[in-house]
């Protein structure tokens, strides 16, 4: 029944942003007759609005294409699209683990760029066969020969038979498909062994329950099988298996090497984890596929509705989004300044931004986010250890013996010219240099140990801007280490504002406090009274600024024709005020709560 694995090719397309990955994918679907050009909507694979707008992929995708090759055989291609951001490194690694090869797309006018390097590394680490493809050769500025040299020198990937193509015109796409047949290895597996299949993505479908995207390694899976998930220990009945073309098509079964979807009927996506191995109930003893990791949030933030009435709708929206996103973790939180809201955990800053944007856009909520924080471990004088997700939970300094914070091992790839800039930036962020390696004449790899809390403070943006966009960053959790950390309070009109407090390294507290009070002074508009802004540790004030009282705010002229205009201006003023939060009589704009993130040193 199942397809002969020799005629299967599983691969991913990887590229730097805007190098034409989506257009190329679309062209493959069109040229293999998978989708007619009439039904073609640009970038079929990026299905979320946010994905399409930002040009990033958040969820994985898998599309099956049948290709009639020149050797007369029909091949089954499974094209797996992976998320494209460091927040989702783990998800990417699982998607790549479902492939035997990758097509590395490089723009013929831009050449090798930071993400090209990072993606190529990841594919090589996953042991994939890489087919370089030089794209956009239809453009007058295309320099395929220069780019070919860059691929060989910069990435150490032989590019003699790189495919020269244009996703736009379709030129070279046929060559690519042939190259996939000849260069990417067929999957290997034991058809007679008990089932082992890798889950590389899962999502919740309101009609069918949790649907998993899987790659069968050994054995086969069919409707009606009772399966067992090794990491979570959950058993369930297979309600349906099938493939996407890209619309879902049920299949009798999926065999060795095949990629497809699996409908479980489970109600919680957290039971079907990315990286877990599926086996049959009988095959319970099978060894799990390597690489599974428990996904843990790295970054926490408080999300508060601007309008208190939106607390319940926010809760419902979070419940709905968590159905599809096991990495999204949340619990209620109360702030004196902001009222009732939630403390929400995310994989990283992009994940956070995307979720916040989806909550606002898809659920029509207006939200205020507090500065992101990490999970701290506080050891108390009474021998207890508490984990904090929020600065507000920090015990009094007298009760603290020590505080530990999460550290990362960060890998930065840059052209040699930027080593100095990256050193300066990373040291300023409390990074400890480990090693430097020349991967090629054009690429240097720097390894650092750096506190996660420093990384989430716009480190990535700074790294990018300091290296003209060339740097790429990858990191992994490296355990907890003790640091001299203190809670810095921000006081408005003498009152501490819980939502503005944050945890900072002692040596940096003075500078951060000073910069932040200055920043807040520029953000908080003048009120009818003077507003002192203070930064303090415990009771000790480190920095102080004052927002002067407003002296004049009146439109003097108000004659016949002005009255309507004046009323409209007042309405506009009111709309502006709605975007502010009233904290103890002080109107504070939303940016204030994120100001800590954008503190330049």
């Amino acid at each position, binding site marked *: 029944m199942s397809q002969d694995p020799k005629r299967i090719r599983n691969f991913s397309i990887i590229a730097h942003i805007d190098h034409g990955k989506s257009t190329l994918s679309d062209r493959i679907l069109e040229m293999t007759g998978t989708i007619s050009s009439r039904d073609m909507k640009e970038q079929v694979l990026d299905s979320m609005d946010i994905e399409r707008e930002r040009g990033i992929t958040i969820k994985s995708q898998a599309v099956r294409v049948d290709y009639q090759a020149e050797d007369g055989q029909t091949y089954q291609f499974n094209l797996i699209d992976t998320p494209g951001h460091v927040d989702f490194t783990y998800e990417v690694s699982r998607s790549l683990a479902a492939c035997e090869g990758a097509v590395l797309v490089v723009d013929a006018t831009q050449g090798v760029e930071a993400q090209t390097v990072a993606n190529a590394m990841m594919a090589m680490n996953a042991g994939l066969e890489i087919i370089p493809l030089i794209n956009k050769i239809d453009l007058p500025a295309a320099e395929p020969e220069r780019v070919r040299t860059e691929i060989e020198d910069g990435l150490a990937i032989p590019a003699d038979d790189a495919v020269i193509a244009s996703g736009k015109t379709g030129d070279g796409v046929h060559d690519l498909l042939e190259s996939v047949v000849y260069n990417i290895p067929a999957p290997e597996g034991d058809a007679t062994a008990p089932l082992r299949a890798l889950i590389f993505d899962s999502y919740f479908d309101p009609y069918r329950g949790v649907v998993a995207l899987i790659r069968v390694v050994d054995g086969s899976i069919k409707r009606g099988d009772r399966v067992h998930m090794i990491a979570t220990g959950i058993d369930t009945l297979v309600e349906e298996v099938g493939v996407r073309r890209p619309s879902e098509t049920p299949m009798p079964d999926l065999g060795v090497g095949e990629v497809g979807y699996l409908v479980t009927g489970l109600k919680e996506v957290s039971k079907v984890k990315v990286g877990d191995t599926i086996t049959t109930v009988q095959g319970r003893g099978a060894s799990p596929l390597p690489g599974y990791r428990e996904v843990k949030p790295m970054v926490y933030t408080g999300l508060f509705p601007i309008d208190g009435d939106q607390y319940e709708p926010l809760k419902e929206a979070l419940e709905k989004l968590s159905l599809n996103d096991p990495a999204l973790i949340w619990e209620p939180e109360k702030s004196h300044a902001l009222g009732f809201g939630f403390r929400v955990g995310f994989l990283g800053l992009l994940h956070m931004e995307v979720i916040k944007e989806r909550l606002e856009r898809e659920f029509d909520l207006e939200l205020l986010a507090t500065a992101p924080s990490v999970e701290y471990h506080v050891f108390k004088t009474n021998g207890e250890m508490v984990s904090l997700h929020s600065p507000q939970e920090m015990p009094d300094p007298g009760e603290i013996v020590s505080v530990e914070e999460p550290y990362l091992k960060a890998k930065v790839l840059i052209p040699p010219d930027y080593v100095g800039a990256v050193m300066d930036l990373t040291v300023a962020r409390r990074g400890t240099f480990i090693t430097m390696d020349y991967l090629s004449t054009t690429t240097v790899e720097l390894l650092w140990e750096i506190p996660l809390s420093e990384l989430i403070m716009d480190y990535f943006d700074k790294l990018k801007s300091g290296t003209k966009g060339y740097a790429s960053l990858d990191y992994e959790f490296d355990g907890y280490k003790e640091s001299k950390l203190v809670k810095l309070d921000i006081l408005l009109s003498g009152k501490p504002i819980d939502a503005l407090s944050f945890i900072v390294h002692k040596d940096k507290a003075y500078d951060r406090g000073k910069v932040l009070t200055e920043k807040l002074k520029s953000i908080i508009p003048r009120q*009818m009274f003077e507003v002192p802004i203070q930064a303090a540790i415990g009771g000790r004030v480190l920095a102080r600024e004052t927002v*002067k009282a*407003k*002296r*004049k*705010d*009146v*439109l*003097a*002229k*108000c*004659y*016949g*024709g002005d*009255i*309507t205009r*004046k*009323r409209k201006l*007042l*309405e506009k*003023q*009111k709309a502006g005020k709605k975007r502010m939060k009233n904290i103890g009589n002080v109107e504070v704009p939303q940016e204030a709560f994120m100001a800590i993130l954008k503190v330049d040193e």
Partner: protein
Amino acid sequence: MYDAYKALYLHIPFCKQRCIYCDFETQALPHGDAAITAYIDSLIEEIRHAAKDGKLAEIETVYLGGGTPSYVGGKNLSALLYALSVSMHLTSDVECSMEANPESLTEALVKDVWALGVNRLSLGVQSFDDALLKKLGRVHSADDARRAIDTAQKRFDNVSIDLMCGIPEQTFEDFHESLKIALDLGVKHVSVYPLTVEEGTPLAKMQAKGEIEEVDQDFQALMMQMAASILEPAGLLRYEVASYALPGYECKHNLAYWTGKPYIGLGTSAVTMTQNASKRMRTQDGGVIDELDRRQMAAEDLMLAMRTTQGITEDELREVTLLLPDAPLVFRELAQKGFVERIDERYQPTLAGWLCGNEMYGKIIDMAP
């Protein structure tokens, strides 16, 4: 059915030169340009039509504004005022104001317009400092202004001037001096405007390019306070945010705007307000720009009242509560915040109410969104 119009505004959209801060509907044309006469002719047509439709039967105040009405010359103004006087009852108890700029106010013109029914002149002096006048793009000098006031006073008892404060580089002494001169010259009414940067004006562009200093709001606030402290002891009492007058010399036409009286505007860009007990509508150049229901009308009237010294009485507040039940609460809150104070059964603006009124106006209008 609509209530009868009580005030008439005539717009004259021509100037010798545009000032850098101006965003009014006006254009600079050479003196005697045929387009000016053509415009006056069509305005006369409009007046006749309005009169024929009975719209001018109960007019109590007339205001010729611009632009610069005095710039169109004696011949045009005579034609216009003559047409007006045969179209409505332009008796001496009808307040008839005309705006004029110092450079174009001749003795002959003063005599002509006075004879034809104008009984109040409002002069765009702005400052008695030549350097500042030049900076603003005004075409007159301080001496021109003194001469013009003197000329106006040969026929007119009721002469008003506009003064501007918070002009970049203007000092307290400069502004103090201008206020003193106004008092010495014996004008009966002074309007004090802080210079406002309107979008799209040459001033806005100059500021964006850094060619001129930013307007300093604190500085303007102090100058507005200074105006009150100089003019009031001399008997010119503040009766509105920007208006000071000897008792009896308050501008009735402007008061009509601020007390919810219906007004008709003729000429390009002039706004007409038409209303009855349940609806208020504003139109401009043939289109509706604003429509208010009873509650919104009440809130607007309340807002405009709180721009005047009169403010509102306890009784009026009680009455408005029928339409706006939150009104007493809102006024208590405004009193708490220091925008209004209650003096003799009356809510009146405080210093904060005069200088930072926008928040108060917003709160009032909010009662009927």
